[in-house]
């Protein structure tokens, strides 16, 4: 049972364009929503994260938009660069219960020069 659903599976964007990755969840106990970035041959690394009491968080070119009522959140990468080419995972955690991260299935982003 996939508790966090992520789309699209892969994404091709031109340099300078906007990359958008979407995630949806069911468990209303989730209270922390991170995005991880993974380059080939490396472990995932935290990119940006949001808590459900805010609707948007921006760090540089990366923005998370969060819709609590729809149980959806998305990652926007503005002015996408070839160096952003990586696999992106959304995740959710129920910190009050288990402190276990539940990951989405990942999106492979390719930014073409």
């Amino acid at each position: 049972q996939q508790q966090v659903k992520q789309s699209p599976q892969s994404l091709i964007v031109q340099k300078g364009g906007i990359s958008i990755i979407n995630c949806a969840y069911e468990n209303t106990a989730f209270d922390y929503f991170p995005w991880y970035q993974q380059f080939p041959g490396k472990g995932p690394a935290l990119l940006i994260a949001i808590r459900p009491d805010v609707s948007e968080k921006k760090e540089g070119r990366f923005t998370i938009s969060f819709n609590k009522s729809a149980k959806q959140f998305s990652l926007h990468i503005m002015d996408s660069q070839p160096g952003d080419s990586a696999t992106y995972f959304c995740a959710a955690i129920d910190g009050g219960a288990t402190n276990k991260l539940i990951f989405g299935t990942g999106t492979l982003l390719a930014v073409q020069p």
Partner: protein
Amino acid sequence: DAGITQSPRHKVTETGTPVTLRCHQTENHRYMYWYRQDPGHGLRLIHYSYGVKDTDKGEVSDGYSVSRSKTEDFLLTLESATSSQTSVYFCAISEGGSHYEQYFGPGTRLTVT
């Protein structure tokens, strides 16, 4: 990789043999996790530990056991490896509590023939 090492980094083994993967941290974090990463599945939690000798199961724990005798080491054992356990295994650490960020190691690529 935030003071996390995994050994071995690559291993090829035969079906039915026991395999132990090691995760070592220098951060003195309380929580340690083992994930497996497979195409189309993202990262799935195998087992985790919330302290020395304190462990619990994740969503894909069948066929795996873990041990944590010291804060810095978390061992993952495949008692009798099967081809379905061919995967990339990642260890992660976290301070826990209100600090939810997980830091991932470089991964171990395991092939079971």
